[in-house]
């Protein structure tokens, strides 16, 4: 008797739970469905040439959450705000120390002019002359050459699997990929690049970013990342160590290669080539900002933080 009673109780309970879980889901589905209907109507009203894609998605032009929100919801903000208050703050997400703010703002302006007056026109002209596949190839070539930077930093961060993958990539792309011009490691074997630099390594070691510094030509950085550039440039940068690279490749020694002009020329080519593949990105980013310098600064610092956490 007692068992029967429990069984009934259990069944009742089960029913209740099923009901709940269904009801839990229902608003979502029915909401979506009804919206889909409204949307289909709205679209067929507006546009007679209805296609399959339009049926597939749930589109609503007169969506009540859009711009046409009534005043009403603006007043019920108290509870909602509290719910989100832990997540956002008036301060920047990552604490940014910026004692050089004045200089940084100036340098951001300088780099901006440099981009619009020099880099962009040159890169645009270059992109007219050199076809895209060639520019991608050159970009891949340079990326492949930066393998030592990625290898050393992956190892210093104890990411041995990534270091191994990088090595496989380098071997594959330097050979089958014809000097790294092409990226078969990714296309054929699904091996992804794992870019790491000294700034990130220092970050992983627990060193904070320090004050934000905008570098001439190179753009946003901070003390930690800027210091990280030094060992990278001196020991691992393929352009700076170009005669070593030539040596290792079995080429004859060419005096010309060690000249600063040559190195700057190569760096300029690399930069112009890269920019030619990214025309418009900087401009668009700039429009997203209301006040450009702090926007760029916070963007950089948050992005670096994310890269270090990975």
């Amino acid at each position, binding site marked *: 008797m007692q*068992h029967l009673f429990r069984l009934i109780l*259990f069944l009742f309970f089960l029913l209740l739970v099923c009901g709940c*879980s269904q009801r839990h889901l229902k608003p979502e589905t029915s*909401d979506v469905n009804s919206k889909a209907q409204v949307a289909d109507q709205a679209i067929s009203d507006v546009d007679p040439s209805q296609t399959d894609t339009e049926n*597939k998605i749930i589109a*609503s032009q007169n969506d009540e*959450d859009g711009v046409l929100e009534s005043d009403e919801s603006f007043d019920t903000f108290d509870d909602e705000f509290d719910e989100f208050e832990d997540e*956002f703050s008036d301060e920047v997400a990552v604490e940014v120390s910026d004692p050089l703010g004045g200089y940084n703002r100036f340098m951001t302006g300088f780099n901006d002019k440099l981009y619009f007056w020099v880099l962009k026109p040159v890169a645009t002209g270059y992109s007219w002359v050199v076809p895209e596949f060639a520019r991608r190839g050159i970009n891949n070539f340079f990326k492949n050459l930066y393998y030592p930077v990625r290898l050393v930093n992956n190892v210093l961060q104890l990411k041995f699997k990534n270091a191994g993958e990088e090595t496989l990539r380098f071997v594959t792309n330097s050979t089958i990929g014809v000097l790294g011009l092409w990226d078969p490691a990714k296309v054929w074997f699904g091996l992804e690049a794992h870019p790491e630099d000294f700034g990130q390594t220092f970050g992983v070691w627990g060193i904070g970013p320090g004050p934000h510094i905008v570098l001439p030509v190179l753009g946003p950085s901070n003390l930690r990342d800027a210091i990280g550039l030094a060992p990278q440039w001196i020991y691992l940068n393929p352009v700076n160590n170009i005669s070593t690279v030539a040596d290792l490749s079995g080429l004859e020694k060419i005096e010309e290669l060690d000249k600063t002009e040559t190195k700057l020329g190569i760096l300029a080519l690399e930069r112009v080539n890269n920019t030619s593949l990214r025309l418009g990105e900087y401009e668009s980013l700039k429009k997203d900002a*209301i006040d450009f310098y702090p926007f760029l600064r916070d963007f950089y610092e948050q992005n670096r933080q994310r890269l270090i*956490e990975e």
Partner: protein
Amino acid sequence: MRILSFSVLMLLLLVQPAFADELALVKKNAEQRINAVIDYIRDKNLDKNTRNQKIIAAMSPMFDFSQMAKLSMGKRNWTRMTPAQRQEFNELFVIRLQESYLEKLDLYTDEEVVVDQAKQVKTRIHVRSHLVAKDDKIEMIYKFYKKNNQGWKVYDVEILGVSIVQTYRSQFAGILKNQSIEDLLEKLRQTGGFTVPTGKY
């Protein structure tokens, strides 16, 4: 007693999938919308204006734009605004978000978008997607919260680890430190100047 523990077990089994179902649903929904947008971009027959209109129409229901506007302003500053200011700010902000989004789409025309994970984060759902470009991968996270009676809505988008709402919020707070709300609205009216018409206005 055994039945009781059995019922508890059943309860756990039944409750668990409920959220998993919602996760799957939110993910699928986001996936469909994003794919639809990509279809529109690839459809060469559409002129830009209609295309943009369709894209916005496809994405809008997923977003809670007013919530994003509010959160970007923050509680302290939002309470200082008059209803008229709130209304105008909301409109300017939403247009801005949409235009910025459309312009980004123009930049990344040939990329692939993969929606690869929906994750529960406390009471929220984070849907992670990747824009797979020719030489890099851009991570985008759509953050959903459950809005009363309206299902799951996006309240923030994170691109490359940078939260859009947070970025706007620190900018607004920075400006409002020394300037008035009217000054900020004036700035919003002027800046931007995106070349892409949303077609809505």
